[in-house]
């Protein structure tokens, strides 16, 4: 449909005329302002005219375009949003459904995407021993993999929980290791989740005298810290 021209004393008036003449509701009009004419003495005395071009919005075409888009390239219509943006929006929307105000900062570290959340009631989103945090991360990872058809290395942290936990675990592991050296026998940590165990394994990866190994079944396992070789056999005998 082509544009038609309408005129009124005010913008509103012109739009109203267009609406009546075209038989279309105002919200369904596509409007371009053509001219605002302020004749008269300094625009004071009434002869102001506003001219607009208006036509009915072409809903059908837009709808068709969207439909065509989604059928033609189901994936790429979604990927206008990057995984970073999607993740941020997902987490913030989820927080809102929990009645929480979540603020997400995105960062990268060692090829890993980091979602750093700030939240007023962080303890709810973290949960006992970080179990809610792990669940959130698991779900987000799935959702991203599903949407972008590929996995992504990512990590969520809430109010610096992981960072604090990492420090605590590092201190604990070092203390255990020095006891292992002193007593010459292996020692175990408390049950830890995979992420937490990794912290310990990485910590001693290049250590020549300490060996680490996960022990047990299921999601949380203990890490056994022991001495390498000759000293260790000695430890086993005790």
């Amino acid at each position, binding site marked *: 449909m082509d544009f038609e021209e309408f005129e009124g004393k005010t913008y509103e008036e012109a739009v109203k005329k267009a609406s009546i003449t075209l038989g279309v509701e105002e919200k369904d009009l596509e409007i371009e302002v053509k001219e605002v004419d302020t004749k008269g003495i300094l625009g004071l005395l009434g002869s102001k005219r506003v001219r607009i071009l208006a036509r009915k919005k072409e809903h059908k075409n837009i709808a068709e375009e969207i439909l065509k888009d989604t059928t033609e390239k189901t994936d790429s219509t979604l990927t206008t949003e990057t995984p970073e943006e999607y993740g941020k929006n997902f987490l913030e929307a*989820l927080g809102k459904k*929990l009645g929480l105000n979540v603020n997400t900062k995105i960062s990268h570290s060692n090829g890993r995407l980091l979602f750093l959340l700030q939240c007023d009631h962080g303890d*709810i989103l973290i949960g006992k021993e970080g179990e809610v945090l792990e669940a959130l991360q*698991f*779900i987000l990872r799935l*959702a991203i993999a599903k949407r972008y058809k590929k996995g992504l290395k990512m990590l969520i942290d809430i109010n610096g929980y992981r960072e604090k936990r990492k420090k605590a675990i590092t201190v604990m592991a070092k203390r255990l290791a020095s006891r292992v050296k002193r007593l010459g026998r292996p020692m175990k940590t408390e049950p830890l989740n995979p992420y937490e165990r990794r912290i310990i394994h990485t910590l001693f990866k290049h250590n020549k005298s300490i060996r680490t190994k996960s022990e047990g079944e299921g999601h949380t396992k203990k890490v056994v810290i022991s001495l390498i070789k000759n000293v260790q056999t000695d430890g086993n005998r005790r």
Partner: protein
Amino acid sequence: MLRDLIEFIAKALVDNPDQVKVTEIEGEKTSVIELNVAKDDLGKVIGKQGRTARAMRTILSAASTKAKKRAVLEIIE
């Protein structure tokens, strides 16, 4: 609120989001959230050894703590 939460999560995980139906049956202290998905999507909301279902339940219980209510998630086959 709890219903919305589960719907939001489930829709992000399945191939047929339009077939996700969630109903909340409210009791005095406990709510039962029933999740219906397309047959092909059942595996997606349950996950390997029920991991996805467990993660959803964990998040749900966190949400229900805030709502001072107990909530149970049932996945309807």
